[in-house]
């Protein structure tokens, strides 16, 4: 079955093509094809997983050769898949969560006239994402990387009849291009230094490479990861990406695609092993983004944008862990998996709320929904407890490990990184509780035409399954270090290091901060009345509401100078380059006109030309020769 893993990519891809090309006659039932394709991929993945579990841990890396892709002098590249515990983890996450979200979308998109196209894009995304994680070379990974970018673009702008949604899609696309340049540059460097792009050769060559080379590659890869995973300074697109239908936000912009950057870093572990500076940069970016995201999340009133900020912050945690090296890799992926469950679950919950509230997203117009939507409330609550890191729910097992790992090290680093992770936990507790209380507790602040009701079973069942995962998956995978052991063949065995603070102290400090955060949120948004319009606030809050002025910064630093630069270049092009070319061309045309006159139609003058020409060349040759 491991050799058949190409089916994982082929089936959703075929289904996507089928749905796109099939035309309107597929409208009544096409979406079920999409669900079936995703489900089939899940089953293939499951069988492969079971088979892999039956193998010894050091046999679990399996290479699947597909075809010879780029056969050529200095670069020989085969297209192939690498099936190992890391990629299988992603396969299971993507296909399982993906299938549930497909199912949910059948009901969520029921009244949309383009539901078939929506499922085609979702299938395309699944195929591209699986190609991304299964590829055995950076170049093939890049194909998947661009594929998910395309799917993301198409789905963010799915309702592109609204100009601001189309703009959001463009923004995501443009920002991602910046990251993609990082990946292209990284591949260029690999080709220059190592002459190879497949993981095996690159990692083998990384052993003998200089620190400077590896640092350059590592930083370029980090740029790529920042773009895809919405990390500072390329974070600006994620909030706007919430323009897409909510299932898209759940699958692509929470559970899977945005974590591709973390995958890239963890997959490139051998490169970062030789580049400590690049690795520390990864951790620093992660720590910074996790605080940034948390601060933005504290001020957002749009439920989806608050969740998006939270996603950014949680991926910050993963990046932080990935930047810690071997001790953090397993936890980064562990948190990625649990986050995939609880964040997808909460997004679906948010979708369910919007479904019941006429697509309202302003939390100031929610409140007291716990009675109207019991299932949504309970499932969302489990996700909430999980992201807070309350034991024994999933987030506790993964996040707590990251905080502990961040405290490992020497000098100031553990205090800065650990401190950020610790404070982040408190902030997370505050903003997630704020979101939860504003939505489900307090007084009803609904507009008059809103009659909240529970969503149909097709939507609640996926939410329930994800909630169960949010609750127990962490415990299940953490027991006996099951998950770390499973990933060990890829991430390597991590020596145990003692944090600078005793583990119980860190754990208690975390829980105390979380409790404080929840308490503060309850005081302000659960017990007290929430104004229906955002009140005037301090400068800090306004900054957070405006995503820390990220768009203004981008505009000032990049867009305006860029515009001026292009204008200058256009002017220079017209005044210098074009003018030079035009003048030259004009000169040649005049020459042509005058030479043309020798072609006067008189055969005697033609013959004379020949004769004169002949005499000249004979003289030249004979003179030259003698």
């Amino acid at each position: 079955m491991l050799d058949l893993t190409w089916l994982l990519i082929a089936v959703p891809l075929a289904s996507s093509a089928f749905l796109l090309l099939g035309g309107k006659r597929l409208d009544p039932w096409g979406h079920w094809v999409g669900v079936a394709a995703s489900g089939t991929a899940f089953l293939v993945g499951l069988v492969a997983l079971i088979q892999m579990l039956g193998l010894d841990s050091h046999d679990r890396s399996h290479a699947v050769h597909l075809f010879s892709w780029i056969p050529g002098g200095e670069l020989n590249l085969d297209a192939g898949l690498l099936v190992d515990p890391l990629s299988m983890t992603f396969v299971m996450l993507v296909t399982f969560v993906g299938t549930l979200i497909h199912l949910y979308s059948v009901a969520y998109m029921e009244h949309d006239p383009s539901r078939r196209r929506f499922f085609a894009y979702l299938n395309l995304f699944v195929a591209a994402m699986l190609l991304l994680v299964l590829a055995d070379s950076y170049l093939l990974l890049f194909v998947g990387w661009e594929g998910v970018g395309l799917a993301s673009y198409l789905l963010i702008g799915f309702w592109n009849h609204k100009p601001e949604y189309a703009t959001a899609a463009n923004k995501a696309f443009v920002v991602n291009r910046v990251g993609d340049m990082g990946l292209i540059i990284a591949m260029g460097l690999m080709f220059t230094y190592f002459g190879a792009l497949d993981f095996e050769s690159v990692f083998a060559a990384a052993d003998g490479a200089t620190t400077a080379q590896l640092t350059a590659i590592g930083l370029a890869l980090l740029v790529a990861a920042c773009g895809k995973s919405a990390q500072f300074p390329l974070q600006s697109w994620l909030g706007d990406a919430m323009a897409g239908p909510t299932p898209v936000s759940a699958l692509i912009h929470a559970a899977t695609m945005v974590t591709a950057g973390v995958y890239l870093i963890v997959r490139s572990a051998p490169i970062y092993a030789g580049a400590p500076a690049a690795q520390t940069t990864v951790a620093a970016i992660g720590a910074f983004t996790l605080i940034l995201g948390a601060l933005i999340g504290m001020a957002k009133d749009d439920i989806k944008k608050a969740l998006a900020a939270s996603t950014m912050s949680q991926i910050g945690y993963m990046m932080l862990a990935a930047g810690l090296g071997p001790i953090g890799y397993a936890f980064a992926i562990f948190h990625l998996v649990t986050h995939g469950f609880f964040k997808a679950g909460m997004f679906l919950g948010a979708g369910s709320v919007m479904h019941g509230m006429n697509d309202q997203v302003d939390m100031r117009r929610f409140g007291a929904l716990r009675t109207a939507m019991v299932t949504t409330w309970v499932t969302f609550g489990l996700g909430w407890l999980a992201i807070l890191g309350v034991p024994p729910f999933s987030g506790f097992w993964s996040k707590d490990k990251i905080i502990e790992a961040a405290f490992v090290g020497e000098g100031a680093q553990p205090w800065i990184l650990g401190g950020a992770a610790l404070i982040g936990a408190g902030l997370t507790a505050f903003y997630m509780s704020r979101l939860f209380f504003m939505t489900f507790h307090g007084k009803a602040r609904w507009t008059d035409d809103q009659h909240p009701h529970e969503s149909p079973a097709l939507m609640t069942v996926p939410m329930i399954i994800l909630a169960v995962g949010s609750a127990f998956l962490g415990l299940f995978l953490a027991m006996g270090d099951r998950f770390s052991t499973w990933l060990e063949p890829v991430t390597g065995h991590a020596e145990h290091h003692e944090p600078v603070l005793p583990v119980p102290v860190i754990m208690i400090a975390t829980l105390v901060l979380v409790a404080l955060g929840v308490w503060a949120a309850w005081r302000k948004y659960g017990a007290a009345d929430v104004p229906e319009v955002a009140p005037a606030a301090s400068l800090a809050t306004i900054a957070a509401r405006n995503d820390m002025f990220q768009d203004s910064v981008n505009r000032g630093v990049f867009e305006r100078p860029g515009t001026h630069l292009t204008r200058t270049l256009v002017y220079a092009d017209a005044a210098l380059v074009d003018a030079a070319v035009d003048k030259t061309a004009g000169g040649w045309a005049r020459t042509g006109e005058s030479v043309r006159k020798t072609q006067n139609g008189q055969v005697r003058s033609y013959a004379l030309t020949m004769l004169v020409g002949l005499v000249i060349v004979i003289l030249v040759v004979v003179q030259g020769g003698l």
Partner: protein
Amino acid sequence: MSFVTPEIAWAPLAPLIIVLGAAAAGILVESFVRTPERRRVAQLTLALAALLAAFGTAVVQWAMLDGAGTVVLADMMTVDRQALAWQVLILVFGVLGTLLFASRTRAGEEAFTPLGSVAPGSTEETIARRKGFQVTEVFPLALFAVGGMMLFTAVTDLIFLFVALEVFSLPLYILVALARRRRFLSHEGALKYFLLGAFSSAILLFGAAFLYGATGTTAYAGVAAGIASATGLDPLILAGAVMVIVGLMFKIGAVPFHSWTPDAYQGAPTPVTAFMGAATKAAATAALIRVVYEALYALEWELSLLFWIVAIASMLLGTVVALVQTDLKRMLAYSSIAHAGFILVAFAGFPDGALSALPFYLASYGLATMGAFAVISQVRERAEDGTVLGEATRLGQWAGLGKRSPLLAGAMALFLLSFAGIPLTAGFVGKFVAFAAAISSGAWPLVLIAVVASAAAAFFYVRLIVLMFLTDVPEGQEDAIEIEFSPYARTVVILTAAAVLLLGIVPGPVLSVFENAGVLLLGAAG
């Protein structure tokens, strides 16, 4: 004096015998098949069958050839891989040309006059047209030309070279004069072509006489030996060498021996222009290769000036004058002059690489040429009353063609891009290998000029593309153009377009075939 019967290796002569035999048979067909329509069918079938049979025989020869090749008629003729490669190429052009000769408009009108021997516009001509006369002799004439050209690629004796030259030139002079429309222009072009051709033949003969005088032989090998043994440099040898080469450069269409080209290209029936443009250049290049590499190789240093001057002059004049042309056929004629310059660039320094680069170059150039003229033959003027007239060759008439007939215009664009040498077309690979050969012998300044000329030439190719695709049809001119449909011409367009693309994207197999062809049996170059 005793006469020794020469040993004749008949098998290598088979392709030639088939083509020339069929040409002779075609003359008999003219006499015995009475109805014009049946005669046409018979001639077309005969010509195609002969060309394809010769093609097959030549390919078999190639497969069975032992080592480099065979001497066929003592010193007179050699059939080696180089000759076979050129012969196959000329046969391909022959087949495509024959298809174009057979193409007709929807109204059943051919490219050729119904009766060549009557005065234009005379009553006899009108009668001939009404009676449905056809000059079906064009098929045997084309076969004679193909046979002569095939011979031209294989001869290794100056006298025989002249014979072959005349064998393929005379039918071409006649063919050029047979245009159905604008017959005065056609006659004028043919007469100029004939007069200047005779002049150049005289120059070639004169040169051959000089060489004979200096070395006592007309065989290439003997001439080479004579040059090698000559003490000091004999002006007789140098003048003779230059004059023989000039005679061949005339056929290639290089400056200053190019004057016939625009008039003959424009005046000739378009199918003839297509065939002549592709095949004559190929045959003349093949003959020039043989003369230069087998007979005059020792004069490399002395002759390099000649090639440099003529190459630069051709590239510059061809490109510059093409810029200001307003007639499509004339523009392509000047483009062919520029291409003659590019061909001569590959000769600079007599690199070994030219032996395999030039066949590829001529293949790419010839295919694109045949394709382009095939497209031209399909774009016609239409009178107010709806009757279809001659070809619309004024540039302005092609405005908006992309909208009328996207496929035809797309194919034309492809051919033009190939002329310009844009990557992914055969023209790019052709220029690349030709210039690479010149670089290998150190002629980089010449290549530099060639590259600049190619870039400048791109202007007038792209201008036509812009005209076809980005310009609207002028007001009131919507019905002035008729897109003809002839299955024969369309076949040629499709085949050549496919070949140009294929050679541009995967040139490997064909390049390696020509790589094998880069060996001369008697090569002084080795």
